[in-house]
């Protein structure tokens, strides 16, 4: 379950989080693009790592699914 979450959910969660940062952060668009671009390669390993942190096997799946959904919503709306 953890490996599944790490392989399947962490890439879209990282991507949507970076895209949400791009659309919703304050500041100049080019600056936001730089920041979100730098976030993506950092977030992906961190979220992958996070999948092995909680005691519950389901927690990473739930957290990443919710994060991906919320961030995706913010990114598309922005």
């Amino acid at each position, binding site marked *: 379950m953890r490996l599944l979450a790490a392989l399947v959910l962490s890439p879209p969660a990282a991507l949507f989080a970076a895209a949400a940062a791009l659309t919703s952060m304050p500041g100049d668009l*080019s600056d936001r693009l730089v920041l979100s671009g730098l976030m993506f390669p950092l977030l992906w390993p961190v979220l992958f790592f996070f999948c092995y942190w909680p005691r519950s096997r389901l927690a990473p799946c739930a957290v990443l699914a919710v994060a991906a959904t919320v961030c995706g919503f913010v990114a598309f709306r922005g």
Partner: protein
Amino acid sequence: MDQARHKRIHDLHSWLGVVCGLFVFIVSLSGVFSLFGDELRTWEDERLRIAVAPDPAPVMPMFSAFADEMAAAGRVLTLSLKLPTAAEPVYAGNAVVRHDDGTVRVIDRLWHPNTGARISLREKGLVHWVVDFHRNLMLDRTLGRIVVGMSGAILLLLILSGVVIHRKILREMHTWRLYRSVRLRWQDSHKAMAVWSLPFHVMFAFTGAWLGLVVIFVPLVAAIAFQGNPGAIFAAVSGEGAPPAGVSAPMFSIDEAAKRVEARVGRAPVVVTVTHWRDAGAVYTFRYREDEALISHGLAKVGGADGDIRAVYLVSKPGFLPRVLPAVTTLHYGQYGGLWVKFLYVLLGLALCLVTATGLMIWLERRLHGDRPRPLHRVLSRVTVGVCAGMGFATFAIFHVDRQLPADFAGRLAVVGSVYFGTWIAAALYALARRNEYRTCRDLLAATAVLAAALPVSNMAATGDGIAALLHEGHVYAAGVDIAGLAVGVTLMAAALRIPAGRPEARP
């Protein structure tokens, strides 16, 4: 941290290392060689061993003819000219042209810096292989960069999990029990090298991941946040360039413009990019080396029609963030601080290779000499030794092959690639057949040492230029490659001779 969590993170670190360790090793070692792509050029092609005269030939007549020819061939997407440098002492024009039928072609042209005579192009070979194997593993450019970028993300994950499971980092930095059991020796080497070079390895991993993954990040984010328009992202970062004036005009001399830029910034420009050729709104963008900032090049914009310097800057606008993107490549390839920084990067890159290889050996050592050794572990151990030690051997082999092929040889890259993979596979097969990993490692390292030390011989046999002659004529980069080959050969041979013939027993 509770035991269960520690075990989970430890397992993540171990299995990720076992599954992806060789991949990270390959990208790291290829990165060490790719640092010297520019410096290898005069060694690779003896026709570029040119002593540039103090007053070189003006490039404008040749470049004008080239630019007009390109404009007549189709829509010019980019047009640039490299000015002579010590590493590449020629004028090198480059154009990317979209023809009427939609095909896009990249056209290169070289001119002698002293006479202006055209130099025929040599087919891509050693340098292209060394640089592009690290950038994209010689796969399709986009796919290859993504795959290599993923190695950076994997390395970040390995580093993160490694730091978390090693809770006594300060003590482990200073522990190196070389005369205890084999496993302890691997473990201490792995931890000490990893911890001492940690900041640089994090930087390599992060910048490498960014350089590779930005290729998928930009179109995906464009699809999500810019309604599928990647052009909007590029425009946001680079700004909309000024449109052409629509009035044709004669072009100002690039030679004179380069002199003006040099007088203004105190450094000779190395590249000029031309936009809107033969238009009153044409712009020359000169790049000059900026060694004192963490940015590889400064920029000077000059009017292409009037020769007036419009702006000189390091980054397009003030602030921290605009400096970040230009700094990423500079940091990753050590393009700051001169050759000494590159030599430091070599050591750190080799340390990363050793950390990866020792990590694999720890995992295998536990299984090979644990309770339940399996034949598969033995095979994995041999393959690991063959792949790791064979990669350097294959890389030095293509130096010799490329050097011995005639200058006008057709299909050079195919031969170089075939020899590279052929030699590498042969080394792996040798490791499988040899049945003794220690002797295999010793043999392959010794063979690599011989190939490296023989670089001056190969160069002299092909071109007649020895190290002394090269130094006397001022070709320091070509001589430097020969000297570096000798130094690497001696070092590797010394290392090979220290490898025991079999698994050593622990001292009491």
